[in-house]
């Protein structure tokens, strides 16, 4: 009698290697990309970029400082020049020089009393500005804000 015997057949299955599951995942893939060299480069970048930024900022500050210093010197120099000009103007406007020029160059002479006339000049009418009294709102605000009230007092 023939008995039916179940045939066993082995099918080859491609199983993942140990650790392959991990390599296949996203984190694994990332880890695979960050080689030590990459890591070193990134670290260097993280240090160097802020350092470069700091140095360039520092340099800019120093450069601006020198520019300010130059401007300060320019201000001082202009002030000195202005002072020298004020001295020159004062010397040119001195009564002694003006009199010398008036007498010498222009031939002017001192007027005698008889050459002078005293005129009676009426004093100009003093224009008094019309000052209107404070409005209700001004009074209220004056009441609330003592400072403004004091300022509005004459």
């Amino acid at each position, binding site marked *: 009698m023939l008995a039916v015997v179940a045939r066993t057949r082995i099918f080859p299955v491609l199983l993942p290697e140990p650790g392959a599951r991990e390599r296949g995942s996203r984190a694994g893939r990332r880890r695979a990309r960050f080689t030590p060299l990459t890591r070193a480069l990134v670290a260097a970048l993280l240090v160097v970029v802020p350092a470069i930024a700091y140095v360039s900022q520092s340099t800019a*500050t*120093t450069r*601006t*400082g*020198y520019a*300010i*210093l130059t401007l*300060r010197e320019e201000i*001082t120099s202009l*002030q*000195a020049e202005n*002072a*020298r000009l*004020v*001295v*020159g103007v*004062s*010397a040119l*406007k*001195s*009564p*002694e020089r003006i*009199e010398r020029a008036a007498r010498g160059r222009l031939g002017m002479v*001192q007027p005698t*009393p*008889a*050459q*002078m*006339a*005293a005129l*009676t000049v009426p004093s100009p009418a003093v224009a008094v500005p019309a000052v209107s009294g404070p409005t209700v709102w001004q009074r209220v605000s004056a009441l609330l804000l003592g400072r403004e009230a004091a300022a509005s007092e004459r």
Partner: protein
Amino acid sequence: MGALAALLFRLTQLQVVRGGRLAGIAQRQQLATIVLEPHRGRLLDRRGRPLAINVEATSIYAVPSAIEDRARFSAQVAPILGLEEDDVLARLARGRYFAWLARKVPAGVVARIKALRLGDQIGFRSEDQRAYPNGVLAAHLLGFVGIDNQGLAGVELTYDSTLLGRAGEAIAAHDGMGRVLVETQRTAVDPVDGSDLLLTIDQVIQHITERELDAAMVRTHARTGMVAVMDVPTGEILALALRPVFDPNTGTRARPDLWMNRAVSEVYEPGSTFKVFLAAAALDSRLVDTEQKFFDPGFLKVGDRVIRNANGKKHGWVALGGILRYSSNVGAAQVAMRLGRSVFYRYTTAFGFGTPSRVDLPGEVAGLVRSPAEWVSPRLQTIAFGQGISVTPLQLLTAASALGNNGLLVRPHAVRGVRDRQGRTTSVTSGQTGRRAVSAESARAVLRMMTTAVEEGTGALARIEGYPVAGKTGTSQKPAPGGGYDSQRFVASFLGLVPADRPALAILVILDEPLGAYYGSAVAAPVFREVAAQTLWHLRVPPRTQLSEPPPR
């Protein structure tokens, strides 16, 4: 690997182990305290015109530690700076890092020194230098400053603390070339510039006064001269001129005897100008009235001394007005005897004689008024005509102002107010003292007498067309070195107020030892007239009477 370890080791050593100490050393080398110098306040005339301002000047210093060959260095710079080589070497020996070589030198000298290219052996520093653009104008009143801009005379000295301001302080790092690194500068104390002073003098009136005084000095060959103009109601000094004079720009290089402001620092015997105060005392005390007459035979015997009038003139019976008009010494002596020493002394001191006027100018002296116990004959009589009493010119002018101010004394002053750098007035000076010397009636009565003295008496040459003048001449002998008085040396003076009906100006003219004519009426009165007339025109004071001719068309 080994090299890296060595580097790390060195890094740790520098940054961690010695880091603190090295950082401290670096800070000390780079950081320095900077003194922020304030600018000295300006002096302005009463209308804001500058009389003393600051300009920039360069000072030169050496850095001794940077100089290798000092002999060569001194040989190079000494001739340019006008110094001896030994002097330069001595200066270099005084400090290690800093030694002044020359302060506030002209630009040409700076350029020549820079051309030597001495590098870090020498340095230049900008400093304020005081400049007086009008030269000698008002020199004695303005004064001058020293090399460090400290006031040494005049208003510059009295108001030194106001003008000086306050220095500030900052800390900053320096680069390798010694430049300040602005971004590191931290101001600890802000500098405060000095305030400006608004003076009482008017540049134009001062010029008029000096011009007329110069002309008088040439005319009379006087040894010294002085003219002062005061605003009667306020006591403000409008002009103060003295001769000989110095240029404040030359500062301490000028002769020291020229610096003294004789208007406040020197006393003199006022002579007959003092009679107006005798008259005021006589009227105010009611011991003498305007009608009472005294007999003047030309001399008066007092003990063993004989008092005489000038030129031995006899005036006969004269009232108080006549005594002023003819400048009678004999009459004045009799009035003084009528007053008595205690009354006369009281009024003398009431007018401010014998005490400083408290004017804001340095070096003021009190004058010399002896105690009444010492006013024994003939001193009482001689004081009546201004001998035996010493006053400063400014005291005399201030007392005269009291007569023009209805008997009220004012305090003379040279500064109207103080202005900050923004031009805001921060303080104002007042000349009011509230002290009364005599009543208003007495003061007015004396002014009337002084007016007559000019119109009809000795002060004829002081008359000004259109304006009534109240004045009194003075001619006093100078004390002789061996005692007594010198009959060859005189002080001529004129004291006047104008317009007499409402005095605006009090003017005193003093000429010391004029040659030739020496009477106050002849040499001082014309100076008064010229100064007063031009000042009245300048101040636009209208004439009181119609001028003789209409102006030409």
